[in-house]
């Protein structure tokens, strides 16, 4: 077994030294383009998307850049926007036909967090020291490697897939079964590819559709719900027997996760004027950027990604 894994590690090293070493994180746009030229099908789409990305970035920057005659006066440009019936502001919105249901689920999840998850996570957090909890989070993250690997491949991000394969091999072998994360260290520096099936669907132009706030799972959309189902089959825990143990492991993962992030949700809620809308918008922005920035490639703004435009 060990022997087989070390072959895997060797193989991945081979792959990595070939192409993945200039991986500069998710933000660097054009750096990874030359490798993509082999994929002729994807090429025009990328070029087009890049062009549009440039244009929209420029628009976003110029939009408010004019001088104002009177600091508190009307802003001409805003009137134009209304008159032409066009939206010049960079806008990311999502349709919300299920708002009453979603708001009810928001309150349900809110209570679940404050009454159950947070107290349990706090007790757990006091009992287990932080380094151990980070180890647990690393372990679960390493276990879910097939999701990131397969979705990188599905998006034609071979560099990312290779990085994930290398991360899995290194962290499993030298990271004590995934509890440590030596692959992220300065010397190896393989960047984790946070990909999932929802993002893959988005990459192929499937729109978000509308907003669904699931009980337990939280903010989502038809596309991302389908994505969750897809990821379920790629998640090794799903094949764990008996079923009860698998579910238990998931709950444990969630509690561990909450224990490391106490305060994040509270901060968002406290800062918001309408916490439900704030959460919904954070979800929309977060997913949009994740799909747009994947592998350093860009996808048109506001266009095919979001089904509904207001």
């Amino acid at each position: 077994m060990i022997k087989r894994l070390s072959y895997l590690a060797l193989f991945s090293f081979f792959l990595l030294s070939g192409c993945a070493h200039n991986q500069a994180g998710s933000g660097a746009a054009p750096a990874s383009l030359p490798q993509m030229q082999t994929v002729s099908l994807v090429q025009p789409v990328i070029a087009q998307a890049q062009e549009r990305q440039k244009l929209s970035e420029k628009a976003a920057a110029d939009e408010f850049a004019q001088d104002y005659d009177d600091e508190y006066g009307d802003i001409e440009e805003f009137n134009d926007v209304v008159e032409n019936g066009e939206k010049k502001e960079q806008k990311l919105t999502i349709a919300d036909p299920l708002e009453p249901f979603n708001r009810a689920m928001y309150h349900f999840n809110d209570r679940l967090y404050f009454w159950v998850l947070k107290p349990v996570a706090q007790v757990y957090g006091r009992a287990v020291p932080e380094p151990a909890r980070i180890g647990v989070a690393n372990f679960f993250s390493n276990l879910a490697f097939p999701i990131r690997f397969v979705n990188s491949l599905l998006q034609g991000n071979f560099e990312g897939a290779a990085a994930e394969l290398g991360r899995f091999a290194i962290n499993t072998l030298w990271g004590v079964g995934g509890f440590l994360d030596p692959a992220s260290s300065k010397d190896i520096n393989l960047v984790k590819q946070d990909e999932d099936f929802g993002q893959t669907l988005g990459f192929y132009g499937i729109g978000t559709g509308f907003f669904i706030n699931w009980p337990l799972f939280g903010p989502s959309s038809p596309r991302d719900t389908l994505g969750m189902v897809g990821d379920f089959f790629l998640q090794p825990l799903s094949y764990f027997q008996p079923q009860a143990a698998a579910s238990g492991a998931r709950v444990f993962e969630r509690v561990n996760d909450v224990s490391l992030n106490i305060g994040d949700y509270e901060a968002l809620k406290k800062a918001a004027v309408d916490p439900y809308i704030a959460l919904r918008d954070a979800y929309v922005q977060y997913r949009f950027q994740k799909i747009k920035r994947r592998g350093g490639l860009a996808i048109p703004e506001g266009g095919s990604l979001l089904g509904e435009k207001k």
Partner: protein
Amino acid sequence: MTMKRNFALCVVIATLGIFIFSAAAWAGPATDVLKDTVNKVLDILRDPKLKPEAAKEAKKEKLRIIYEKMFDELELSRRALARNWNNLSVAQRKEFVPLFRQILEKAYADKILDYTDEKITFDRENVLADNQVEVLTRVITKSKEVPITYRMIQKEGAWKVYDVVVENVSLVQNYRTQFNEILAKNSSEHLLETLRKKVKEQ
């Protein structure tokens, strides 16, 4: 001979050029301003003398002075209201601007307060327009890295922040969506009343 010398000269110029260019591309005055300000904020948040509850007001006041220089409150408000700005009366605008600034300051302080014991790196500066840049920073904690991007605008020589993007979520855009929803169903006065209440609670 001359060719050789010309060649050598070219190399020198090219090398110098690269140095100058890379220095300019590395970081700009906006990054320096931001670094300085963020460090000042962290110093105040970490100051043990300002930790106790009794010193809360003093701490708030010290932060307020820094934030006033750090954020462009007009720019923030205009961007967050967008076309709704024109629907407010001038008097309402004048009330809105400081109210919104206070809410944002609190949101930002809470966000950065979580991370006071962690390391902050200033990674890159991207030019968005002649007078606008974004500065990419990361807060590195034991369990994760949180990217925080500051969008800055230069007015009358001073660089000021007009948006903070935390983990890909723009604060200004997040508020814009909220204000849009609220103003679609309610009056401007209703929004102002909500903000007044919120500031009082803080």
